[in-house]
């Protein structure tokens, strides 16, 4: 059975598999590589070569899909290392974000 997280803004649960696929797709788009080459255990920087611009593009793509803002200072670049870490970050963010607009400054 899959883990489920909730995004109140969308008013429906978001499956963990969907988050992982969205994260891998966003990475694949930013890196211009096929999505099947982006594996959960891959290190964002060392294995995939994700740079600061790529990370920003990934953040924006995730924002677009899940309607959750990834605000300044919480960018995962220093805290997260792998695709799996990023997936967990996004899933947690989707779960704890009560309202998209509420978080905007």
């Amino acid at each position, binding site marked *: 059975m899959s883990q489920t997280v909730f995004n109140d803004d969308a008013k429906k649960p978001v499956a963990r598999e969907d988050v992982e696929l969205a994260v891998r797709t966003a990475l694949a788009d930013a890196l211009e590589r096929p999505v099947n080459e982006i594996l959960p255990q891959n290190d964002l920087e060392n294995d995939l070569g994700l*740079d*600061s*611009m*790529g990370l*920003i*593009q990934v*953040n*924006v*793509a995730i*924002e*677009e899909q899940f309607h959750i*803002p990834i605000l*300044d200072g919480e960018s995962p670049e220093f805290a997260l290392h792998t695709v799996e870490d990023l997936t967990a970050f996004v899933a947690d963010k989707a779960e704890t974000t009560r309202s*998209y*607009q509420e978080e*905007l*400054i």
Partner: protein
Amino acid sequence: MTATLAVEQQAAVRTKQEQREYERAQVAAHYQNSPEVFSLVLDSALTYSTGIYMNADDDLETVQQRKFAYIQRLLAIQPGERVLDVGCGWGSNLLYLAAHTDGIFHGITLSSRQAEELLRRARSRGLQDRVKIEVCHVEDLALPPESVDVVLFSGSIVHMRNRADIHQMVQRILNPGGRMLISDCYFPAQIRGDRASSATDYIFYKTLGYCLLLNLHEELALIETAGLDILHVQDLTRSYARTLGAWINKIRMNREKIEALAPGFAAVLQGYMTVAQLSFARRTALEYMILATKGQPRANGGSWSMAEEGV
């Protein structure tokens, strides 16, 4: 080879005419996007440059209106004085100054859509008799010597490589006592951050077509060498970081509408604006306003300083 270096190496072997045509094609593209899209990101005047923040709760409209008023005070445009706005955009500064002074305005832009929108706004406010707009490059201008009182570059000179000639031209066309105002981005002279990164490539070339960030002292030296005197330099770096933050938040609020009008453009804007916001916040890029004069300033705007928010 990094994109930044490659682009500048290619630029270095172009003739001035070739570089002008390169800028005309590269820079216009971004600004040819629909003004309706930009209205979902920028303030109501479509100001595509920094505002001036002074208070913690300032909103985007307030900070842009404050900047217009500040520019009006710095330039002190007298009745009948001729103002050239180079890279006038959709007319944010030009239309404010036209409405608040009795000057005569000539705006130029590389984007026909910007020119159309500016003219539409000028007509709707009854300002069209004192406003002329041309779609051309600054180096296409063939204005007579001593025919202009004010030259304004707001967020535009960064797109122009041939700065030395441009400052010489400004010096030539200005009347004695004329003023030039620049508001734009610079690199700190101290090397900070990676200027040849994919983020730089994304913002300078992929999104905005062509940008050349000088150091402040290089721009000031070119201005002085052309024969103009520097009156005032103001740092607006912190304000630009906050302006970009306000634009990004508007993209978040209006994402679906922007997507409906221009699929994919919201992500492009948010991506490059996030890079720029981080750069100004970390001061790996700086935003300055520069006021210069040809000889003794004919009009004195009084106090030239305005403190940004001190927080």
